[in-house]
């Protein structure tokens, strides 16, 4: 392929020019993100990328960057995107890394082509296609890294939001906060049941004061948890039912008749203590 040979020869012969032009653009573009990435780092990254790009493009077809041969370039861009996600760059700032390479490359091609307009157009088109693909790959990698971060945070949140606390000897409480979905209920249920076994608690109080809304699904999950607790041989009280939630539950037609419910945690604790045969006297 003629275009391949040419783009590559340009990358080789005019690498210093391209690098200088590219760095200039990069620095202009990253003026807003000063402090997050030093000029030296940027230069290192740019130099390394050009080296990898030149060596890869020499050996492999530049029409398809998805092939095995382009692996090193893709890996480099993946790493770069990940670093930038962590450093707090936006997606367009990350993509600019590749897109700002266009101009210096075009200029180099123009010089090389001289007066042959036809050839210059062809070369430009091939280079544009390649750089666009690489740019898109960068954005994709950036987004994937973002999603990874979000996923990890969700997991952490899940762990944070399900503490099982011991209120009294044999009485456990689980203050639920936030919206309940299947995944969360599953984890909540498992940790509560495990704790019941560990502490041999007879009564578990599920406090739903922090649950904003209850729909049929959430009610279903609650009922399942209550049933599982009963199967293990402990009792369950649901507390913190707010007026709106009580209305919703009745309107939804969910049958909570078999479940002890209390308006607040204090009432639930009082009932739990009474059932455990503990009483207080005021002096």
């Amino acid at each position, binding site marked *: 392929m003629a275009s391949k040979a040419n783009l590559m020869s340009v990358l080789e012969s005019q690498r210093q020019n391209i690098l200088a032009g590219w760095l200039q653009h990069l620095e202009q573009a990253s003026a807003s993100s000063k402090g997050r990435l030093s000029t030296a780092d940027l230069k290192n990254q740019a130099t390394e990328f050009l080296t990898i790009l030149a060596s890869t493009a020499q050996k492999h077809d530049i029409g398809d960057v998805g092939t095995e041969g382009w692996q090193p370039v893709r890996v480099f861009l993946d790493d770069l995107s990940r670093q930038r996600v962590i450093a707090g760059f936006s997606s367009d700032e990350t993509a600019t890394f590749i897109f700002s390479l266009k101009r210096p490359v075009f200029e180099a091609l123009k010089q090389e082509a001289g007066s042959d307009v036809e050839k210059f157009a062809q070369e430009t088109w091939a280079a544009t296609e390649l750089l666009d693909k690489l740019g898109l790959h960068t954005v994709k990698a950036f987004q994937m890294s973002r999603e990874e971060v979000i996923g990890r945070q969700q997991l952490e949140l899940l762990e944070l939001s399900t503490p099982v606390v011991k209120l009294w000897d044999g009485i456990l409480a689980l203050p639920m906060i936030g919206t309940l979905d299947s995944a969360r209920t599953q984890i909540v249920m498992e940790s509560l049941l495990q704790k019941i076994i560990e502490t041999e608690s007879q009564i578990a109080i599920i406090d739903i004061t922090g649950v904003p809304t209850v729909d049929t699904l959430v009610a279903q999950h609650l009922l399942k948890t209550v049933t599982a607790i*009963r199967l293990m041989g402990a009792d369950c009280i649901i507390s913190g039912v707010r007026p709106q939630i009580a209305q919703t539950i009745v309107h939804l037609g969910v049958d909570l008749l078999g479940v002890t419910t209390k308006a607040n945690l204090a009432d639930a604790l009082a009932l739990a203590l009474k059932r455990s045969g503990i009483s207080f006297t005021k002096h």
Partner: protein
Amino acid sequence: MDRIPILRMGEFLLVTIQVDMHDQLALQLQDDLTRAIEKRAAKGVLIDISALEMVDSFIGRMIADISGMARILDARTVLVGMQPAVAITLVELGLSLPGVATALNVERGMVLLRRALTESSDDDRFIKR
């Protein structure tokens, strides 16, 4: 063929399931237990499933069935020591075992059985009167 032993403790029968249940073993247990209740005139059955780590719908139903059969033979059943994973599985299978008494461990199960026994003997007195 291996069987699950049924131990006698006064008026109660004690069954500890320590192996993974398969269908044939479950049916055998059902058979043995009903015979034992009849033979010993047992008033209560305590089934310890704390070592049971897996259940399917068949075993779940069998547990419910045993409880129903025992009740007809005038014995109360208490299921003790169910593991969290087992409880979750049963709930997901829709087997909430209504009418089966449960307790956290053997000790509490025994307390429950004794209480049930005194209550039922009160009932008898009431009827006689």
